[in-house]
């Protein structure tokens, strides 16, 4: 996964997509690569993960070798015009940008192409060894990574059409670009992941680098111990324990029982995921951390888990 030069990290809302993107970037930076991590939706979740107030379009160095930025289509347009159309219209870009924003809101693929174009540009110019994109959630990711194809169909002539060619070359090269899909071992996220993989394979030409199952409850017991636990978790042994250990032992057993029940359900969903993903794509497991405040600590723990899985 880390051998590639461009990774899009996606997943259903709430599965920890941003944390995983930050962790992948941190892990790569720790191996000495120059890494850029970019948040696409400007929600500020990436900044929270790194515990800074905010990021901007201009990259900020967060730790040695790791830069972070947030996508802004207006800045991207400005940079694009400066680089490719050679219009240094700093003063006059105001009304232009406003109009543009407006067209972009309605015209298909325009915002996406500017965002993806900026990312591909960074890859092409080799400003970094690896670019990690905290991409759109699973519902919007196909529109995002397939934007160059969509634009090529809609726009018959012009500079933009010419430029979709090199973008597609970068995006469709499995050695260069990969998609990382984050999920949790729950019904809806797993179902959405399976559906997304099908769509990505049939509609985009972007290779799937890995699927990451986040917040997987670790097994408390071996299979035989689990049977023993089920027998302890019966009225009679519970009463005996309550007598010897204290009344609140019931709460402790209930907590273990709930946690074990949730783990078993999760294990079922994971199995369904593995079956659907197939052998060609690795499924990486990140255990539940039992600490839920997102931030630097969580990012580095998740980075450790990913390292354990891939190295």
């Amino acid at each position: 996964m880390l051998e590639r030069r461009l990774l899009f990290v996606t997943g259903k809302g709430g599965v920890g997509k941003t944390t995983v993107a930050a962790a992948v970037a941190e892990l790569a930076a720790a191996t000495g690569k120059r890494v850029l991590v970019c948040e696409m939706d400007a929600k500020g979740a990436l900044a929270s993960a790194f515990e800074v107030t905010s990021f901007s379009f201009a990259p900020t160095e967060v730790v040695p070798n790791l830069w972070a930025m947030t996508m802004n289509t207006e800045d991207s347009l400005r940079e694009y015009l400066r680089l490719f159309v050679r219009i240094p219209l700093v003063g006059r870009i105001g009304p232009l940008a406003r109009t543009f924003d407006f067209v972009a809101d309605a015209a298909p693929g325009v915002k996406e192409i500017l965002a993806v174009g900026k990312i591909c540009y960074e890859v092409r110019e080799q400003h970094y060894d690896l670019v990690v994109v905290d991409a759109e959630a699973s519902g919007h990711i196909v529109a995002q990574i397939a934007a160059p194809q969509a634009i090529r169909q809609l726009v018959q002539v012009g500079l933009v059409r010419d430029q979709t060619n090199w973008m597609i070359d970068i995006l469709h090269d499995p050695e260069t670009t990969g998609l990382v899909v984050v999920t949790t071992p729950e019904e809806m996220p797993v179902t959405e992941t399976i559906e997304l993989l099908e769509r990505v394979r049939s509609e985009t030409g972007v290779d799937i680098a890995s699927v990451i199952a986040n917040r997987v409850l670790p097994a408390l017991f071996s299979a035989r111990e689990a049977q023993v636990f089920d027998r302890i978790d019966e009225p009679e042994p519970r009463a005996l324990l309550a007598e010897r250990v204290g009344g609140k032992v019931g709460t402790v057993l209930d907590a273990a029982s709930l946690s074990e029940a949730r783990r078993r359900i999760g294990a079922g969903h994971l199995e369904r995921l593995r079956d659907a993903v197939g052998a060609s794509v690795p499924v990486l497991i990140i255990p539940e951390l039992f600490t839920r405040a997102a931030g630097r600590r969580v990012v580095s723990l998740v980075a450790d888990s990913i390292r354990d899985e891939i190295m």
Partner: protein
Amino acid sequence: MATPRRTPERGIETLLAAKEMLVVCGSGGTGKTTVSASLGALAATQLGARVLVLTVDPARRLATALGLDHSGFGNTERRIDPAALSAAAPPAPGVKQGELWMAMLDTKAGWDELIRRHAPDAALRDQVLANPLYQNITARFVHSHDYIAMERLQELHASGRYDLVIIDTPPSRHALDLLDAPGRMKEFFGSRLLRWLTVPYRSRLFTVASKPFYQVADRVLGSRFLQDIAEFFVLFQSMERGFVKRAGEVEHLLVDPRTAFIVVTTLEAAPAHEAHFLADEIRARKMHLGAVVLNRTLPPSIRQGGAAKAARSLIEVADDLALVEEISTRIDAEPVMVGNVLREVGERFHDIAIVASREAERRAELEELGTLTVTVPSLAQDVNDLVGLLELGRHLQET
């Protein structure tokens, strides 16, 4: 029906009885769809109401169990089998069994319907529907899902067919998109920019102001694409008045006292933070915040002082050979195993208790909102059928 409206203390049932529209919102992955369906089942069985739940994407097993399949039934409303509903929950004494209806939100069908309604004539209608950009745009146009969701809510309520319409909102990029969708739609159609953009293609006169834009745009995008876009907007402009009026009605509905918002969240950091933000914004817009549902929480008993002590004792008794032996005999298991299991259970409790403490902190933050908060514990099974929905419903009712 003179039902008092400002009675949040009285629980979720009051809300179901007093309101006619419930908008269920919150971060992705917090269980909005299941909570929406559960509220619907509750209103039908406990209040005898005729309820419609407009949902976005129910989990497949739940959809199948409710007799809703995914194979495009568009915006059709479907009734949940009355016999199945009665079997899952006999109506409360003195209450006649209500009706539970479900419909799925179909953005494309929703748009087509809008065009049919607002197009001034059949020719223009067909022109828009056949326009290639229209096909592409409806999926993403000005926060399309959010607007269509609100629009459908308005229409279903106005149909007068239901006592209560519950809407499960689509996943948004930003929480506020939903609240602002009608306003944006109005702004879009009413904006001078739209007119300005389409001017050169109507009058074929380039104004001084727009000239640089078209020069650059021509070079970058090609004039053909721009012309396609402009033609499409010209078509749309003919429907401006209808759209603006309609969006105004939808906007008004969101602040209507008969509408309440229900924010669903788990007690994890990010969703809880978003829920707080969303609740504040709902109030800032003078919309009615009905309840905050804290979903998938750990039982509060975990934080009781005695529990942590019991967990430590459990680790100690794992080495108490006499006790371990006694349990082993009773349950017919190897003593070594029993010792291991007791130790593991005691040790894991510590992890769970940490999570419970953090949850308690977030709960306190959300309770500061001063609105009705409803707690749903983490259930040992996924909710897959009516029985599961009603079990969830009982938890919603309990608080």
